């Protein structure tokens, strides 16, 4: 079932990942499910815990599907926010960059 598809679909995250964005982000991720994904977090200025949860659930699901789930680009704020809440995104960072 897990057919590898090398064409990673991009997902650009909104600058503010707050409560309101969580559901939207969840839907976007669901739409992209089943294909490798490269997330562009370069514009992110604020990260709420809910969006972090959605992203991590995504990472987990993608991992179960044995598909690649990477952060292609990240902003400083995004990195710091994930550090703050103790979410380690290092393994998810795109290696190619």
């Amino acid at each position, binding site marked *: 079932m897990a057919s590898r598809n090398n064409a990673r679909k991009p997902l650009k995250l909104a600058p503010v990942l707050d*409560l309101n964005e969580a559901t939207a982000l969840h839907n976007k991720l669901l739409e992209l499910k089943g294909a490798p994904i490269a997330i562009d977090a370069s514009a992110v200025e*604020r990260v709420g815990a809910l969006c972090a949860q959605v992203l991590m659930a995504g990472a987990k699901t993608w991992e179960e599907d044995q598909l690649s789930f990477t952060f292609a680009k990240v902003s400083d704020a995004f990195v710091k926010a994930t550090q703050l809440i103790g*979410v380690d995104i290092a393994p998810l960072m795109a290696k190619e960059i």
Partner: protein
Amino acid sequence: MDMNEIKEIFFQECEEQLAELESGLLKLNDGDRDPETVNAVFRAVHSIKGGAGAFGLDDLVSFAHVFETTLDCVRSNRLEPNQDVLKVMLRSADVLADLTNAARDGGNVDEARSRQLIKELEALANGEMPQPAPEPAKAAPIAQVAPAPAANDDGFQPVAFSFEDFEAAEPPTIEPSTYEIVFRPKSELYAKGNDATLLLRDLSRLGEMSIRCDMDRLPALDEMNPEAAYFSWKISLKTDKGEEAIRSVFEFAEWDCELDVTLASGDASDAGQELPMQPVPFDLSLLDEGAPAQAEAIEDDEQIVSQQHDLRDAAVSTAANASNVLKMAQTAARAPVENAKASPASAAQAAGQQAASAATPTIRVDLDRVDRLINLVGELVINQAMLSQSVIENDTNGTSSINMGLEELQQLTREIQDSVMAIRAQPVKPVFQRMSRIVREIADMTGKSVRLVTEGENTEVDKTVIDKLAEPLTHMIRNAVDHGLETPEKRVAAGKNPEGTVRLTAKHRSGRIVIELADDGAGINREKVRQKAIDNDLIAADANLSDEEIDNLIFHAGFSTADKISDISGRGVGMDVVKRSIQALGGRINIQSKPGQGSVFTMSLPLTLAVLDGMVVTVANQTLVVPLTAIVETLQPEASAIHSFGATQRLISIRNSFCPLLDVGRILNFRATQANPVEGVALLVESEGGGQRALMVDAIQGQRQVVIKSLEANYTHVPGIAAATILGDGRVALILDVDAIVAASRGQALKPEMTLAATG
């Protein structure tokens, strides 16, 4: 509002909180295990602490903090609130009250005592809590709103937090300690617009923080609810700000998360051993609000804005939690917007005030203003009566419109008067609550075990009466515990429960408030009292006194049966002072005592000292007012119903029963001989001691409300007369003291104040 006014409000609220605290603790003492009761108690202490912090009242804060910590153990079921625990807590409540008073009025507190209690409280908190329970901290949100403005963006730093005076208190705050924090938000936290990220950010500012995000509960993407809470965190924080600062970060989220803060046993590395933690970089400036995402420059106002934000969050969550306090939450949210710049503390006060007054909105008014109003209304009533009278006298065929107008005016003044009096009416609860402290202290001092039972605390009575009630009541309670109750050993020997009971009851009876103080002690030792009275030359050695008269001897000045003078009572200024204060209030006091079973002191006081519904009567050409509440019925005696009894007594037969007929004019010495009953009117009255009497007066003039003017203040006490009033025609009329008259009828004539009988 300047700072002092705000402070004054704070202290007023402290009083309310202290009352709440005490009643909660007493409920717990009675076996109430309702978590809401525990919460209410916790909230009270928490609010006091919060407010005290805002004013930098260090002693108060540090004591409240320790107290709160112990209460928290009770709240989270780590500490069973048994009798011993509650004893300490009740004493702590007393000390808290002392500290509050000291903070307000200056003066000293017994430092040794508070230090001792701090130790005891800590022992309780530590002794039985090897593992802090993960129970969520759940103070009601409203109380949480109160201290909010004290917290600035960085947490809770302005809260003065000094333990210098308490060496045994928390670990020294100068040394940074490592805390382990488990933070488990609930979905509600996010639903209310709060974000765990913000809390963690604030937390990280307190010191060096390592964090581990627990994602175990995170489901797969398609199974998850994007707005539910799945993450939880385990945090290790090295800070010198103390646990309080940590908790205050979660102040507004407390309701919506599970939070567990513990002091790490070893150094930070221990904590790190079991789980890998990610260190949090110190510089988190990018995450600040007001960073690029927000265009406006709000540097100067940032603090205030964020306070408002926090407050609003709190208010919103409050509303969500309890819809019935929605209005308050809104007020709390609005308040800071209006006040934050000028004085954040006032917002706290506004919010706190809302919390304290529960659902009904209240205002605080200076008592002086109310008094002035009452006085003026009194004058208005007199003036209105004068006006009616002169209209009737001068305009015999008065037009109906004037009469109608006058009638309406009369009704209106009446209503105004009632409403004004209602303003002053207050439940006796605060006074009763103070008594429980007295009981505790005396019980401690005397080594007796005493239980105070109060009933009818919500009985309302005029504020003046309440204020003046405390002192005599204190005296009586002291006496009851010190003299009335026996020592536990003696009680056991007498086959009684070693714990003595003092029962304090308030109730309305025939338009007066009756306060009863009953103990189940030994009762009055009449032999001893009698001997003492003889020794003190109060009575002749061969005087033949009834039991009641002996009992009443204790109201004599300079009378004290205690063999040795103790701190508590027995200074010989006891009961006569009590009696005089009660009399000054227009009240009476009497004793019923049964040897071996205890004594009952009954005080009867007027509900108000300002107005009275009375029947205006004529006796021997004098105008008197008989309180309407005492009158059962009026009747015109017929010669056939009058019967002689003994030499001077007469009885009247009313519906087949006999009732003593008293000539008021004779008793008051208005006339030398008894009047002919058939020519007069009999007022059937109910007396305090029970039983009816027929008071004979010459004629009834009418019924009206009269404004009471104290006779004692303006003239001097007159036996048989309670007070005076001014009638519509400007004349002074005396208000009859029905019970004194009834009592006097037994002893033939009225005696001066120092009578042996319990007349008053």
